[in-house]
Structures are given as C-alpha cells and as structure tokens.
C-alpha cells in the first residue's frame, strides 16, 4: 500500500516485509497510519516495532466496544495501541481484536507505561491481559459489579 508520508512508508514496508500476510489490514487516513494484527502475533509485532523501528514510547492504549456497529467475523472488542517514535515524531497505531473471554497478551514487558493502561481497560471493559503483574480494577472499587464502558451498561449504573 503506498502512502504519501515517506517515513511512515518506510516503516510500513519493513512491517510488510517482515509480517507480510499477518498484517490483516492497514489504513492511512488523516495522516495517521493504523495496522491491524491478530491477537496472537501482537507481541512479536510490537517487539519488532520497538527494537528495529525505534518506536520507543507507548502513548496510550484505547479500548473499543463495537457492539453498536458489529463487523461480521470480527470479535466484539478491539484494543488500539498508540505508539511514538521519539526523535522524529512518528505516530503509529496497532489494532487488535478480542472477544469477551479471550485474554490479550500483556505488553508490560515491552513498555512500562502499559501497566496502568491495561488495568484501566480491564476495569472498563473486562478484557483480561495474561502476564500482567497485578491485573485489578484501577478506578472502581473491587466490589463494583459490571464493566462500565460496555455499551449495554447504563449511564447511571445498575
């Protein structure tokens, strides 16, 4: 896929060369490149991006509940990882999908700032991250039942 952003184009080509068929989908809109990979090979892709491509900072992990606009064949939740390359200000977004009960690989090993972000996603969506040092609720009390940011959860709570 050709994009009119030379630096990101180089990254995309390296990625495509390395994981050619496992990049399920790449999108480049509004100047932002986002790559979708399956849950299984999330860690190798991120390790590759961090070590070879120099994306050394994890900016944010965003959880999405696509219950209102379900895409056939794709699980309900998707998790977006927003990355940074420090000196030359490159941004990249890696997207994976997960159903309710499928645990995602935790990336606290690669990035230390992932610790609380993953706990927040567990707190809000109920997605489990295997390999996370202490996966407990970060905002709500432990006695809170339900996961608030799911679409079926009412705004004012049960």
């Amino acid at each position, binding site marked *: 896929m050709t994009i009119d952003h030379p630096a990101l184009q180089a990254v995309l080509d390296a990625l495509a060369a390395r994981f050619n068929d496992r990049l399920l989908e790449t999108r480049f809109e509004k100047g932002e490149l986002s790559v979708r990979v399956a849950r299984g090979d999330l860690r190798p892709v991120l390790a590759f991006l961090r070590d070879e491509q120099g994306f050394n900072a994890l900016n944010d992990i965003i959880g999405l509940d696509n219950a209102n606009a379900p895409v056939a064949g794709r699980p309900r939740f998707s998790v977006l990882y927003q990355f940074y390359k420090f000196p030359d200000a490159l941004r990249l977004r890696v997207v994976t999908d997960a159903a309710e009960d499928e645990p995602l690989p935790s990336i606290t090993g690669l990035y230390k700032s992932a610790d609380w972000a993953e706990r927040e996603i567990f707190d809000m969506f109920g997605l489990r991250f295997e390999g996370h040092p202490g996966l407990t609720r970060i*905002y*709500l*009390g432990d006695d809170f039942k339900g996961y*608030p940011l799911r679409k079926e959860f009412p*705004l*004012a*709570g*049960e």
Partner: protein
Amino acid sequence: MIKAPAQPAFLLTQLDKFITWAQKNSLWPLGSGLACCAIEMIATGASHYDMARFGMEVFRPSPRQADLFIVAGTVTNKMAPIIRRLWEQMPDPKWVVAMGNCAVCGGPFPTYAVTQGVDKIIPVDVYIAGCAPTPQALLHGLITLQEKIAKEHPTRVMFKKDVRRDD
C-alpha cells in the same frame, strides 16, 4: 430534634450569644479538597479574596482540629465512605458546607460512579451552587453559615446527657 424549653433562661441566652460569637468567628475549615472547587476554595483563602478576614484562613490538616468541612468537589462512590469517616472524626460542634454543584446534587455528572449530592452521606448546613462557584459565592455561603451559627443555642445541647454515647 432538640426540644427547645418553654422560656430560655436569660443567663443562658447571653452565654449562647457569647459562645456562638466565638464559634462563628473562628471557623477552622478542614484542609480537604476534592476537585475543581478545591482550587476556588484555595483562591478564596489566598490574598485576593482572603477568607482570613473572617478568621477562617487556618486550614487545619487534621479533622480533629477542624470545625468546618467544606466539601469542595465531586463526591464519588469510592470517596463517600472516606468523607463520612472524615466527618465523624471531627469534634462535635461541626458544620458542613457543600460547595459546588457536584457536592450539592452530583452536578454535571449523572454517572454510575458519582454520589448524587453529599447530603446523602453527611448532613449539610449550607449549599453553594455554581460549577466552580466564584470566591465571592463561597464567601457569601460562609457568611450565611455564620448567621446560621449565630442563631444556634449550644447551651441547651451542652447540659443534656450526650445521647451519642448510648447508641
């Protein structure tokens, strides 16, 4: 409620006046702020609006020495038991001011995590509206509280057996 005796004895009304004069002129707020309203509370305590003129600038960090609890900010469900315990730790003649819409009625957050109003957990004396009420609004609320204290009758409570110790 405390049953007011038929005709308050003259001596006690003067004593009431003196005690309430002292209590209303030396309200030491608890140095606790929750959210945006806390910044406006500090701005009221700072130089421009100066709560110190009314003798209130001593923000006591420990609830034991505070007698005014300004609930400044959003009371969330996780924070509610702690607010309740703070209120219980304060010695007896204590007053509560609910500052800002969040403390008064949950404000702009009708969500699962917010207690819709601090009067669900502790009795409130003065409600101050505004989303981050301006320091003038807070001062007006505090002066209203002072007027309310001036009308109280502490001596009637003082000589009655302390009911709380029984329950």
